[in-house]
């Protein structure tokens, strides 16, 4: 159809793409009695440094109307749905590691297949059908690096902390008590007999 200079494949692809977009937007072809159009768009994934998933176009699926049609991305990120009737459609992008908002796409019958797109999650309308992820998805919890606080917060740490408080802070508290009261209390205790640690081990007597 169009003369394509093969020596420059990049240029050739551009010409091809432009043709496609041109056709999609202005010259939708019809078949049979029902008009059908093409929706052409592009998925753009920003370069990511997240470990575990690399942005590979070969694993991205573009889904029309909840699975009625599925297409894949070309190396440049473009995709096309062919033979789509006029009406309101829903496009979803499934890519591991990214969350894409579903896109509401209105294909107008009056304007010969003019495409209007709106992100349904953010209600943002798109001038071009370029889909970008709303956010990256991290499927794993990240292990926190070793720190003292995590040990202290653990049940055993709390236990130890409580012991430390009892052992070191209680005597300090005792010091603050009035010495006379202290004496009285001590006497009272002596009358009842002081339970010492050694008494817990009767065998040692």
């Amino acid at each position, binding site marked *: 159809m169009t003369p394509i200079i093969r020596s420059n494949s990049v240029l050739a692809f551009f010409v091809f793409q432009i043709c496609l977009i041109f056709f999609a937007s202005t010259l939708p072809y019809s078949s049979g009695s029902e008009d059908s159009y093409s929706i052409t768009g592009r998925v753009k994934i920003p370069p990511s440094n997240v470990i*575990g998933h690399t942005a590979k176009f070969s694993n991205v699926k573009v889904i029309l109307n909840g*699975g009625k049609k*599925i297409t*894949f991305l070309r190396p440049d990120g473009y995709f096309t749905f062919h033979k789509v009737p006029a009406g*309101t459609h829903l496009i*979803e992008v499934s890519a591991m590691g990214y*969350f894409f908002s579903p896109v509401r796409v209105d294909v107008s019958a009056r304007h010969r297949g003019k495409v209007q797109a709106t992100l349904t999650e953010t209600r943002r309308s798109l001038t071009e059908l370029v889909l970008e992820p709303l956010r990256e998805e991290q499927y794993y919890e990240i*292990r926190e690096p*070793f720190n003292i606080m995590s040990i202290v917060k653990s049940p055993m740490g709390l236990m130890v902390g409580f012991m430390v408080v009892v052992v070191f802070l209680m005597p300090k508290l005792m010091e603050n008590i009035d010495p006379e009261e202290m004496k009285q209390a001590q006497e009272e205790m002596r009358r009842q007999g002081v339970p010492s640690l050694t008494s817990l081990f009767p065998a040692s007597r």
Partner: protein
Amino acid sequence: MAMAIRVFLLLLIFLSSAIVSFSLYEDQVGLMDWHQRYIGKVKHAVFHTQKTGRKRVIVSTEENVVASLDLRLGEIFWRHVLGTKDAIDGVDIALGKYVITLSSEGTTLRAWNLPDGQMVWETSLHSAQHSKSLLSVPTNLKVDKDYPIIVFGGGYLHAVSAIDGEVLWKKDFTEEGFEIQRVLQPPGSSIIYVLGFLNSSEAVVYQIDSKSGEVVAQKSMVFPGGFSGEISSVSNDKVVVLDSTRSILVTIGFLDGDISFQKTQISDIVEDSGKAEILSPLLSNMLAVKVNKRTIFVRVGGEGKLEVVDSLSDEIAMSDSLPVADDQEAFASVHHEGSKIHLMVKLVNDLDTVLLRESIQMDQHRGRVHKVFINNYIRTDRTNGFRALIVMEDHSLLLLQQGAIVWSREEGLASVTDVTTVELPVAKDGVSVAKVEHTLLEWLKGHMLKLKGSLLLASPEEVVAIQELRLKSSGKNKLTRDHNGFRKLILALTRAGKLFALHTGDGRIVWSMLLNSPSKSEACERPNGINLYQWQVPHHHAMDKNPSVLVVGRCGSDSSAPGVLSFVDVYTGKELSSSDIGHSVVQVMPLPFTDSTEQRLHLIADTDGHVHLYPKTSEALSIFQREFQNVYWYTVGADDGIIRGHAMKSSCSGETADEYCFSTRELWTVVFPSESEKIISTLTRKPNEVVHTQAKVNTDQDLLYKYVSKNLLFVATVSPKGAGEIGSVTPEESSLVVYLIDTITGRILHRLSHQGCQGPVHAVFSENWVVYHYFNLRAHKYEVTVVEIYDQSRAENKNVWKLILGKHNLTAPITSYSRPEVLTKSQSYFFAQSVKTIAVTSTTKGITSKQLLIGTIGDQILALDKRFVDPRRTLNPSQAEKEEGIIPLTDSLPIIPQSYVTHSLKVEGLRGIVAAPTKLESTTHVFAYGVDLFYTRLAPSKTYDSLTDDFSYALLLITIVALVAAIYITWVLSEKKELSEKWR
């Protein structure tokens, strides 16, 4: 003291109200979960072995998968699962670097990069009618630096550039009744021959210039007998067809554009005549015909003369022919003999020359060979070696080379139809379990390593060691029952009629069994598996018996086809018995009764409105007759929009002498107006679900009683216009109505209508609530609605005095006949993804809070807490409500990436999720199937009843030792002090 309790309680509430999301650390992958990747039953295979480097085979399958497999190991290099309506018609390799697939009845042509599977181009081809489609990639056709691919489909012939997918030319063949049969391209010429039939009686040959698509010449000739459609092209200028009576072979020659017919009676060349069938392989100058179960090889002579060269009595599978050295072609044939299969590679020209003859022991449970694909390679001694890829009846894929099975793939598991879980045998005294466990020292060492790991002090090598230790953790793969019920067998029934038992520990196949037809009749060689039921689960009586399952199969795809029952021992995988039941199977109903050997009673409804009782024993009959009046069932007529309720009437002995057959009467009908409502989804609760408590305490100490009835049916209907896909209706035209219907009385308990909404509806029903997912056309978003149903008749029982004085109706039997006063609460939320299926977790006692398992369109499974779909959520919950765990209302449900239970994996082609309880209350098994299989264990409220895998016993030991040492030291010190005090 009271203060302390209060603080403790507050802490508890705080802990329980914190949103627990299931989440995983990256190093925990594979500890509890496993994932298996499959492709499905192979339809086409193309080898790519010419170049040095990776040898691969490109396959397309019945699950609409195109994949590149490693020919050495059978592993998947890459694969793509196309849409469900995008069936692959043909696959080939073009330019040596692109995989070309033709799909959707010849309307979509795609090219994939051979090494990595990246899609290179995609072309949509024009189509006007349904027709069969052909893909041909000529190897030596070159037009202006371009290599056209010839595609026929939808009545059009297209030439597509292999480089960028551009349509070079197209030719309209949409004339009345014209069907292209073959596209032939003689080597060294730019003319393409297109042969087709007009109205099945006229042969037409077009000669088309491959450069421009212009018709150079056209010839046609009427054949009075008519053709039957099957065709075998034997050479570049000849094809052979059967006439419409299937008794005459017609050789059509179209040399230089002239058409000639030559008729040969099959009875002339073979003694036994009968309906013949042309086998599909492409053999050069040869034809394979199947007559009366015999395969006959017919050589086509130079003048169209037919002569029988060989005839085989056994059923065989054949490959296409393949050029080997010196202009000769070879083909492979495989036939069975006992438990062996024989693979033979012969020359097409000389059937006596057998290039290869191998016998391979084959597992009986793989069935017959369905397809053979061969590929040759040059051995070191310059002779030809062959490798054969065979597809078996159970859909498995095997590579045979040098008389051995190099690798095999159980592709039957890509088409699982039903799943159930069963227990493993109890560990016996004779079986030493201890062998697997480590010695104490090793155990301690392992835990020291773990401790180091958890304190992040481990070196990289130690981290690897820890990971290894965890993955093969002592007992998880044993074949005996464990204390926690983590080890179980997952029984999966596949479309091919094979039953697999998978171990939950690592997903390995413990046993597999191909269903056999009990009668071995002609009509029903291999029944299709439909459903699986627990037949016998001994736990009180008959303890010496092994548990068994019931497999219900059917001979043929029609619902009126006779059914087949098969009983399979779960421990051994042996078929105990099987029977042809002689009636059709529409519905199978497990009854809540078991006989003295703990066999569960089942009712099977047939197409005539009768029900049949199984097992056919007098004991079962007497049990059933006792409960005769209490057995009800219902049928859903999705086509006519009627739901019918039935009850037992009498024994149908009047018509047949079968005393296990019963006739039924219609009790009630619910008719949906066909002009406004169409049933798209029905659902009931799982019969084996456990509900812990009927009461639900509100924040204000109010009590609500859940309406827990097993006889509730959820029905969703849409207006007929809205039954199509999204985008085909306007919001004004479509509405969605859901009903909750009591299946005993037919009473509609609740009706809820959603204006401007449409299906598909995916729902889950558990306890007293239904959650369903549908599409809201006005907002153009998916929505999820929850409906909870409460029993109002018991709402009076709040007064303690009433309870003490016994003036309550709690002990009154629940009956469907009393008119229930129900209260329903519902709430809707947006959901940001399409859904394929929804399930819910289930635990032994039903105490643990539940999670919804949502299979999303991206083939992931999201675990969503039930608390997010609670109708009591409000915008500003009060303090008390917050303490109870009510989440503030948001307009959409959150998708937290960490709560994907499949983490960074995909269950391609997801179709179903099954949850089964473990013995531990907190934990549940989750098994998801589609093209892939995925299993994991979930704890919806975290493992509150057991220590986690990460628990460091070493740390505990060290703490105890340290404490003991501290006690000893302080004791010594205190003794010294006492002594010195006494001296003073």
